[in-house]
């Protein structure tokens, strides 16, 4: 069965036998996009978080058939070393990662949060960022999320100035 969607701004068709295969494994094993991680397979830890349309979804528990026709962004599509996304820029400034395994999921969840809320409060973070980090990088992540929001707001202002 063929399923077509947009991945990191490019159209993509995958040929898959079982349409209920979780999106996570399509990303990792078929499309070789390894930034999205397996943590639990039950949507409980958030390591597999990606952006589908405007929402953060946990791709280990999201059948690929639901992605049909939709736009998906993974960490690979968020930014590059040359042009980092504000979240990545902030993560670098605050030196957030330790082992790093859960970080892509956190960064994707943060990117989606900032799309919807340009100036989140600590309470917004507490409510919306529910991923698991075993190294305990939450303290730096909180600082990085506020910093990312700041970078993003500044970028938006600049863009508006240029218009």
């Amino acid at each position, binding site marked *: 069965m063929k399923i077509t969607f947009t991945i990191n701004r490019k159209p993509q068709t995958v040929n898959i*036998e*079982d349409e209920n*295969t979780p999106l996570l*494994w399509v990303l990792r*094993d078929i499309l*070789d996009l*390894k*930034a*999205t*991680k*397996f*943590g*639990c*397979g*039950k949507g*409980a*830890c958030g*390591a597999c978080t990606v952006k589908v349309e405007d929402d953060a979804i946990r791709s280990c528990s999201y059948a690929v058939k639901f992605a049909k026709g939709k736009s998906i962004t*993974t*960490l*690979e599509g968020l*930014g*590059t*070393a040359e042009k*980092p996304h504000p979240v*990545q820029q902030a*993560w*670098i400034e605050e*030196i*957030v*990662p*330790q*082992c*790093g*395994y*859960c*970080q*892509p999921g956190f*960064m994707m969840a943060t990117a989606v949060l900032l799309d919807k809320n340009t100036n989140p409060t*600590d309470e917004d*973070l*507490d*409510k919306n*960022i*529910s*991923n*698991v*980090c*075993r*190294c*305990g*990088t*939450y*303290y*730096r*992540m*909180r600082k990085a999320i506020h910093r990312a929001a700041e970078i993003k707001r500044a970028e938006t202002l600049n863009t508006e100035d240029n218009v």
Partner: protein
Amino acid sequence: MSKTKQGTSRRQFLVKSGLGTIGVLAVGTYLFRNPIRRTIAEKLDSGESFYMGDTSSPIIWFEITTNNNIILHSPKVEMGQGTFTGLAQLAADELEVSMEQMKVVHASSISGNMDSFATGGSTSISSLWIPLRELAATMREMILNEAALKMGFSTSDLHVKDGVVSVAGNKMTYAQAAENVTEWKIPDTPILKNVKDFRYIGKPVARVDLKDKVYGAPIFGMDAQLPNMAYGAVVRSSTIGSKYIDADISKAENMPGVIKIVKEHDFVGVVAKSLIEAENAKNAIQVQWSKERNWQTADIEEMIVVGKGEPFVIQKEGDAEDILEDEKDVIISQYKSPIGAHAQLEPNGALAFVETNNATIIMSTQVVKLSRDEIAKRLDLDEDKVNIVPTFLGGGFGRRLHTPNAIQAAVMSKAVGRPVKCFFTRKEEFQNDTFRPPTHHVLKAKLSEEGMIEALEHNVSSGDVAFGSPMVPSIAAPILGADLGAWRGGMIQYRGIPNYRTVSWRVTLPFATSWWRSLGLLANTFAIESFMDELAVRLKKNPVEFRLAHIQDDTKGFRLKEVIKAVVKKSGYKDEVNNGRAMGFAASTDANTPCAQVVEVSIEDKKIKVHKVTCAMDPGISVNPDQVRAQCEGAIIMGMSAAMFEKMEVENGALTPIIYGPYQMALMKNAPKEIEVVLLQNDDKPGAVGEPPLGPIGAAIANAVFRLTGQRLRNMPLQLNNHF
């Protein structure tokens, strides 16, 4: 200098085989005498660490690339603790190259640069502090000698900066100097740099793996991939003690995508074209397991009781036993900690490719040598034919100090003649973990008329930590008696007390318990430091001053007092309730690194809320102060998570829960919004960092909660009584 180096190496060798050597030397009438055990225990508690790999030649450590970068092949694995960055700093300073030129990769087991021990015990930086700098300095001299030959000057005429040699207006890069050199001459080890000349050591440089981790590079074991790779899945028992007997594979054999069902004497697994197909077929296999007792949490709790099992005195000063024998006027409190899971995010697994005469295993492991040796044995290959290629670890925490799962991947790869990648599911991870053992502590004290502690005793009952681990020779248990992991942090650090004693009670549980970051430190410190607080409260004394009054006047005591004073100053610690918030204090010494913490808590929605943690630690030289801070922050949150939320239960023979969420852990909403770290340096070398800051946090929270609520919480995870 080379003499010094050899001296160091010789000493390393003797101590590296420490447990085994003791086994040989100590056999005799002295074997079971407690003073010897205590001496060994004190030695192990001293925090001295030794590197256990080959430091004879820089050639196996460094590679010079044509674009003049240096690749350090690290025998220590990077699991988040920042070791790659710290080691790069040590090397860059002596090599005279910039950090931008330093690249770090994992050394594979056939590279010759293998650590015979492990990455663990907070020893990576401290054990390589001298050897790696000596290797880097030697490498620098080797390059300079070659450059001198090529440039027609003597080595002493050369200047060097950022990997470029210059003399009389001519320049030559290290890469150019190294070009076409077929035989390197290893000179005497040069004199190492003075502290004041360090360019990178002691500076908060950014992690060398930062960009890979922020842009999602495929660096973890689970990201590994080889051409023609198949997926493996092994059926694992979900109940305690049950062993594989046989399996009915008739249904699974014909399922879609299945390449082969691999039946061995000790396990059955599937190899399939995709992971989903492998998992589906695995679930269709009917396994016959040996039946064990139907274990319940209550059974385990009944085993972990001070007074049951085997007692071993690991610390003794004065006559605490006699003084505390008559329980009149003796203060007694009991504390407990539950079974803890590692819950690292990347499950255990391996990608194995076994060919006729060799095997390649790409995997997250903390024990490259042990992983290699076990696979070689099972496949009947020479050890040098098995190449372990370590990857970045998606969390270690001690979970990867034994990797029997890699054997299964290798066996399945051999069976199908192609690469096989096989990982645990999350349920399997939770049920087959090597858990932090549950503990029970009895603390006893007698106070003098002057309001000082006359005698103090700590009895701890714990499941095994080190014993039973394949890293520890089986001879160690009868010699040492007390499990060296279980009592970590269990000794009394207030050596101004005239009479004190620590007794470790060993209990072997029916499921695997082993290394969990900081080992016994978290639970032992929780018990001892809660009790110290109880004594201070009883005497109406300031808990900080009460502790300071019981610390001895020696180097160790001085360093402990300094971190206590520093944390009090930074946090503005006060023994009072203010605006619905209270502070709690605790301190510990682990592997010779003292650490003191103050937490600030309130009660929100009838639950404990930690707002702020202040931490003062003295690890000696902080090679990278930013990453030492990161380790403190992470350890505080991990320790908080374990102290406040985490608990495994045993239900009808199975360990549960089997998923995040039900296995409650600290999340963003629980993490303190403020963490302040003060780093002291009252030692002239780097000491342990990754584990010591896990010590005080549990007791500090419990002590704060007592001030706020009057409730003395003596069991982890800390939960307020309902009627509050």
